[in-house]
């Protein structure tokens, strides 16, 4: 066997393996997920999908179900047959709708899903991209009692961390709030109240652009190709198809606040006073910053920066603590009374 042949063979094999096993979307994982899914999980996922269609006022078909659940058409047909048999779903000319019992069950799962998302956001250090993915797994393994325990711990929250309403234990659900960002009027100040967390790719772009719940923004320009807006003293641009996944409400009387800066924007030796932590910073990350002493009213001084400008070393209440820039961004500051220190 020539070395070239051996080399090529192994490279081919590696590529195939990498493709098969690439994270999340790899064939092997898909297959594994499918095998691990029990009948109950599939039923719950199917009901959630139907509920989602209902909510979006889109028809739910065999196709959409097989796509959403990553199962074959045949499998989807059998599944829907089962659901019909259980009186959870009704069929009318080619599309499927939830029956009352089915809707109750769907809302139960949605409640657990959104409670989990809320829990992951408030009580752990999982990144925003992971909340939905984790909740997708955990929702099927959580009993009603555990869910209520979680609700208690979280003070009976009404919205998930993306701003979607959480159904009550008895299965009522509040209306979705806000209007799509694309429909906001130019010049109005609006607040983000909901971000759609699916599809993942669009949600990822929103996160990358720094959009978060509670963000206040002002629309500067709207064309069919792009939406330009200003938030936290910075300009952002989104494609309309992405902006449509963000819901906003107008703010009636925007309070005139002092212009706040991000701690990460300070230069070396500058001193400033903390005014707030961004709502985008939650969970353990937020608690950690507070416990380290970054509470409103605290004087912070940029003492040093890493060789490339990251991380920043901050003198806060007598201790020197380094944070990464993306964390320091969450801390909003105003000029300290004395201005820039020597």
């Amino acid at each position, binding site marked *: 066997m*020539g*070395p*070239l042949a*051996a*080399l090529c063979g*192994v490279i081919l094999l590696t590529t195939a393996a990498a493709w098969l096993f690439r*994270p999340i979307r790899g064939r092997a994982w898909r297959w594994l997920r499918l095998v691990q899914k029990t009948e109950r999980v599939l039923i719950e996922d199917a009901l959630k999908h139907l509920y989602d269609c209902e909510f979006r006022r889109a028809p739910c078909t065999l196709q959409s179900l097989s796509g959403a659940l990553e199962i074959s058409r045949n499998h989807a047909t059998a599944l829907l047959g089962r659901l019909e048999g259980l009186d959870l779903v009704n069929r009318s000319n080619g599309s499927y709708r939830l029956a009352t019992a089915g809707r109750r069950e769907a809302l139960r799962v949605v409640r657990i899903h959104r409670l989990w998302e809320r829990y992951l956001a408030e*009580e*752990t*250090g*999982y*990144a925003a991209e*992971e909340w939905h*993915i*984790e909740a997708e797994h955990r929702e099927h393994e959580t009993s009603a009692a555990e869910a209520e325990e979680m609700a*208690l*711990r*979280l*003070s*009976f929250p009404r919205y998930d961390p993306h701003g979607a309403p959480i159904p009550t234990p008895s299965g009522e659900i509040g209306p979705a709030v806000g209007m799509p960002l694309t429909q906001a009027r130019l010049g109005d100040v609006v607040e983000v109240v909901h971000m759609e967390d699916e599809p993942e790719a669009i949600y990822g772009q929103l996160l990358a652009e720094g959009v978060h719940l509670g963000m206040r923004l002002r629309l500067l320009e709207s064309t069919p190709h792009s939406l330009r807006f200003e938030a936290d003293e910075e300009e952002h641009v989104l494609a309309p198809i992405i902006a449509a996944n963000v819901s906003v409400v107008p703010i009636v009387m925007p309070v005139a606040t002092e212009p706040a800066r991000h701690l990460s924007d300070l230069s070396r030796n500058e001193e400033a006073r903390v005014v707030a*932590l961004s709502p985008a910073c939650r969970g*353990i*990350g*937020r*608690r*950690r910053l*507070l*416990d*380290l*002493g970054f*509470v*409103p*009213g*605290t004087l912070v001084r940029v*003492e*040093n*920066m*890493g*060789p*490339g400008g*990251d*991380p920043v*070393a901050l*003198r806060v*209440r*007598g*201790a*020197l*603590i*380094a*944070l*990464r820039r993306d*964390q320091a961004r969450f801390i909003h500051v105003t000029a300290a009374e004395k201005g820039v220190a020597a």
Partner: protein
Amino acid sequence: MTASATAPACVECPAHNVANLTKLGVDLSQVDFVVALAGNPNTGKSTVFNALTGLHQRTGNWPGKTVTRAEGSFGFGGKRFKIVDLPGTYSLLSASHDEEIARNFILFAQPDVTVIVVDATCLERNLNLALQVLEITDRAVICLNLMDEAKRRGLQVDDRRLARDLGVPVVPTAARFGRGLPELNQAIAEVASGRTVCKPHRINGQSPALADAVGRIAAGVEGLLPGLPNARWVALRLLDSDGDIAAALRSGEIARLQNASMPAAAGESPQPPPRAEPASASPDPTALVTEASTLRWRVGPDFHQTLVESIYAESARIADRAVTHPGDKARFDFDRSIDRLVTSRALGFPIMFVLLLVVFWVTIAGANYPSHLLSVLLLDTIHPWLKAASAAIGVPGWIDGLLLDGMYLGAGWVISVMLPPMAIFFPLFTLLEDFGYLPRVAFNLDSLFRRAGAHGKQALTMAMGFGCNAAGIVATRIIDSPRERLIAILTNNFALCNGRWPTQILIASIFIGGMAPPYLAGAISAAAVVAVAVLGVALTFVTSWLLSRTVLRGEVSTFHLELPPYRPPRVLKTLYTSLIDRTLLVLWRAIVFAAPAGAVIWLVANVHIAGVSIAAHAVRLFDPFAAAIGLTGVILLAYIIAIPANEIVIPTVLMLSVLVTGISDVGSGAGVMFELDSQSATQRVLEAGGFTLLVAINLMLFSLCHNPCSTTIYTIWKETRSARWTAVASLMPVAVGIALCFVTAQLWRLVSLL
């Protein structure tokens, strides 16, 4: 040393919770009082601990956690005190492991005294923790440490004022110089015996909404558990949605604390495990938790923030009254100028590399001579002597071979190769750490590690790995984020440890240096070794990046880095403790892992099947595969049987080469590892065993990338408690190594075809 178990007058009787302490693994024999030591990081807690206990101390882990616990004892005024060093934290409000441990110890073990070590130079920050501790317990002493530094900075701290404001004794100390410690002992004894009664300050400067909510829940708690000393604190925790405290309240664990703290209950000692329910549990704990959960909203959108703000505000108020500033100038000038230098764009990295290089150079150069001495002593003097002795008393050949040629040689080899570099490398490292430089290295390198999805402190654990991977893996405890810690553990093996340096140097100087003209040989072989080490660093980054995006995606991640002030290291003490530590580690490793490996090596070479030794069978079996990846069967077999210690790979390779090739004039028989004094003789044996330049290069690569030694594997298992992660950490490097060797071999052959 009297173990007086008789209960004295009850003012003096201990208040600690025997059942819970026993559950936490604290040995209470011959102990009158239990003392906990709490404080922020770097306030001198360990120094105070050492000063109080002297040599009467030991370290271990908190049960079920990989957090180090130091525990010691001392006597004062005829009583024995047990003292436990809690993890250093800024707060007790979050859910990090450290905070949970400190909090639970103070709450559930109910120590007789909690000593809160605070840094007199930044009182405000330290009081944040002190106030939280004083909410939980009312038996506390403040140790106002680092008074010398405060004085040097011109700060005046009024300890009497502080004592009045906090309601507990305050003792100014400079632990490093032993100042104030007798007074501290006295204060501890008085609080423990109840002669000093504390009336600790309780946080009260809260917003009206917060105060109201706390008042209501606290009333509920008191209704539920009359006489509980820290009802207000329990209320605060319930409002802050502390799941553990809510669970403890509902399970009755907190009720048992209340019983234990009732004076009447302390008549008999030790107490029987209390199982009595509280007198009447009429109000329902669950209802109380629910009420707290609804009240939380009234306080504001972020209860936790409101709470932290109010505690900090209170700390600032108290600190302000106690401290007189000289005018704010020039407090941290010295530190800042060092920081500027060691983290500067131009000089930061050069300084780091030079320091690291010096450490390595001192280690390698300094270890040479003692290693040689040890080897002459253990291998060339004692071994023949033992052999002669055993022959004289007629020990059967196989016992003699197994014990002396196998086990003794294995252990002796590891000690002579590993002990000197470890005993030099780690003390140097600890000195840099004590000075405060190491966190700056993490600071400099964090942006690189961040891009690989890892934590800046991994730079330190990696550097430790250059000394010993097992030590590097234990050191990952400094990384407080679970995901980044796992990454650091899984990739630590790519740092070329002291046990592998000799292999690299030997092979490089024979085969790579040997090709160069003599005046360049040294430089070129050194460059080859450095290249391998650098490749290891590169692999660390690449695999960290891959891991953080695949298997470790979606694990919890946080970051912050403390940069403690620079302090002159205590050279002698550091050298002494670090030396003892490392020597013990190497000896333990030699006996537990290397000696059995020696036995296996001897057996493999001496047990025959069908007239041929197992070793020869195995080598023949491995040869085809080994050839495909550009190694030899002997090397693969050596790596398998020498898993326990990388240091004995080369001696094993030499022994096996002689065995399978049948060279007759070197070595001392089957299964007896050996090394040769002259490089050319070594080269001759290796070449007879099929070594070429390609095999040499691949051996260097494989020595960098193969499974960790068994000590390291064992350490990984202990630190992760997970068979899965241990398997990943052990197999991933082998896979990388095989791939590397394979590609190198094929490219090599391709090039030589052309």
